[in-house]
């Protein structure tokens, strides 16, 4: 069929900027996964469901208490973070002594439950949620139209990602976290409440996912299924990055978003498989992942 190629370089840059939105979501989500994995050694399959809960909370907040986008950005992550804390205390804490695979299985089961209940009460078609008025419209850059909302998403995710990196890598509490990952017993001996740190870390990871969910709500279809397909791509992103470093997760997330965006321009039919193909290549060339620790 007829496709339109041959975009001039300025427009290409514009396309990339817009395409970076996917990268923002990949970065936020893989950051959350990396933080949780780093502390708990659990792959949080529920991450997709927590992302969905964030979007769902935004919708519910609007519908039942009239609170719009901006309050939701703060409240939804707190709500879902609290749910995360409950999940960790009720379910996850019993698994730390077991094989890591059980964590994956349990969080998979939790995801099924959360998404199933969501479908039950909210259907599958989707729930209405529109752009906040303050972020409507865009800038006409001459060669293309750049929506304000996209700029906001990219800026917000960069800020949150870098902020998280800073806290973990450059502050005292971050140092405790990193130490507890390596040697929890020793850190406990220093009087630091490691189990509470673990619980809060999981809650924080869930909150990150929910934050991404709220940002997604105005532009992506808000439905109980919105997390499950996304999470598998995020897994691939995480394998490519290797979960060795926080910065690695962020860079890989944004980078792969850019690659996917480019593929959409030049070879759209392949854009949903390109990340998996890259994963296969990285596995062949550098099995530990681009930023992984052990080979």
């Amino acid at each position, binding site marked *: *069929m*007829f*496709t*339109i190629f041959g975009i001039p370089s300025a427009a290409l840059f514009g*396309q990339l900027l*817009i*395409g970076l*939105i*996917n990268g923002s979501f990949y970065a936020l989500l893989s950051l959350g996964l990396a933080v949780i994995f780093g502390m708990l050694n659990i792959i949080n399959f529920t991450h997709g469901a927590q992302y969905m809960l964030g979007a769902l909370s935004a919708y519910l907040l609007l519908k039942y208490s009239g609170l719009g986008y901006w309050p939701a950005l703060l409240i939804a992550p707190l709500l879902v973070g609290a749910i995360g804390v409950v999940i960790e205390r009720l379910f996850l804490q019993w698994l730390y002594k077991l094989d890591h695979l059980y964590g994956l299985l349990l969080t998979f089961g939790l995801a099924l439950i959360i998404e*199933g209940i969501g*479908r*039950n009460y909210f*259907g*599958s*078609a*989707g*729930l*209405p*949620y*529109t*752009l906040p008025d303050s972020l409507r*419209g*865009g800038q006409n850059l001459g060669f*293309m*139209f750049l*929506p304000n*909302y*996209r700029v906001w998403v990219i800026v917000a995710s960069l800020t949150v990602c870098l902020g998280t990196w800073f806290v973990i890598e450059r502050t005292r509490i971050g140092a405790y976290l990193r130490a507890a990952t390596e040697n929890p017993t020793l850190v406990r001996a220093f009087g630091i409440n490691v189990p509470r740190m673990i619980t809060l870390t999981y809650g924080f990871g869930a909150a990150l996912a929910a934050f991404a969910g709220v940002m997604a709500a*105005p*532009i*992506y*279809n*808000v*439905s109980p*299924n919105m997390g499950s*397909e*996304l999470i598998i791509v995020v897994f691939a992103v995480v394998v490519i990055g290797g979960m060795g470093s926080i910065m690695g997760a962020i860079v890989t997330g944004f980078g792969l978003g850019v690659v996917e*965006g480019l593929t*959409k*321009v030049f070879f*759209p*039919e*392949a*854009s*949903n*498989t390109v990340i998996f193909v890259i994963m296969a290549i990285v596995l062949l060339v550098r099995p530990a992942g681009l930023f992984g620790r052990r080979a």
Partner: protein
Amino acid sequence: MRKFLGLAALAAVLACGSASAQQVNVKIGVLTDMASLYADDTGPGSVAAAKMAAADFMKDHPNVKVDVVSADHQNKADVGVQIVNQWIDVDHVDMIADVPNSGVALAVAQVISTKNKVFVASGPASSDLTGPKCQPTTVHMTYDTWMLANGTGKAIVKNGGDTWFFLTSDYAFGHALERDTMAVVTANGGKVLGAVRHPINTSDFSSFLLQAQSSKAKIIGLANAGGDTINAIKQGAEFGIVAGGQKFAGLLVFAPDVAALGLKTAQGLMFTETFYWDLNDATRAWTKRWDKERNSAGKLPSMNMAGVYAGTMHYLKAVAALGSAADGKAVVTKMKAMPTDDPVFGKGTIRADGRALHPAYLFEVKKPEESKYPGDLYILRATIPADEAFRPLKDGGCPLVSG
């Protein structure tokens, strides 16, 4: 003497009455999607519609007893086939209704035909059900892909939307929609300015929407469905597509999708459906009753659910006329012989290839300020009469017809 006369009179009455008072038992199975993509367009709403039809019918025909069972095929063809096999062999189900998802529908149509029961397909879209894959036991209600492409394409072009750009889901269904609609558009004097294919379940449509925008086509045809359609339209709002003067044409859109988008985002969207709850007094009254049966605050019935009701009613009429539901082929033949009449679709017929004919309507989604009450979503732009809305009989390639 009086006693003898009395007995004779009683015997006479019984003898006359017995032919029409014969008890007929019918079991209907609503095979639908309860949990995923089609759950809001069909699912529990379809079951409610079937139960309504059964209750309405039994009220007027006390000698007919109708049982309605239901199951979720989970959008899996093998689950659907397994359920249908079990229903017919073990549970003595006589008629299978609904079945959204053309893949499942085509599979069960085969099984039902082999076992000589009836398939009232009000859920699936594939026009193959009345084309090359038609069966003597299948009746296809509500809509099909040909009608969607033709209705939407033709009506929009006639309404002034003569330049098109397509956003197509890159798999067989999307290609088929695109191909059919392109043909209709060009045949009616329109021009196709371009098309782009996107993978199924794409979340970010920005680069495709930019291409659509720069093509300056008056109409952006969405040859996709479900979440892809919704995402494309939602992000179209981001890019100010509608504000810039272009309109979206949804090639497979249901009322629940519009509700999911909300009027602010969906305004101006044009598409074809065969039922709208607010179309006339009959549909309004029916919807009120459906709402009570369905017990779901505020949800709207879709055209598929209306199809379940209409199809079930007509099926029961045929069964009552024949006296038995046992021979599927015979019942369907009777259904084709009798004209249809119900509050949801109005008057219509069922053709030799199993296609149910009734009018179709081109709708446009209202602007938020135009909506006067909840559920007031559509403007009626055009009515397509029944004989024009569906593919001509001779073009279908159904072996029942040409043979």
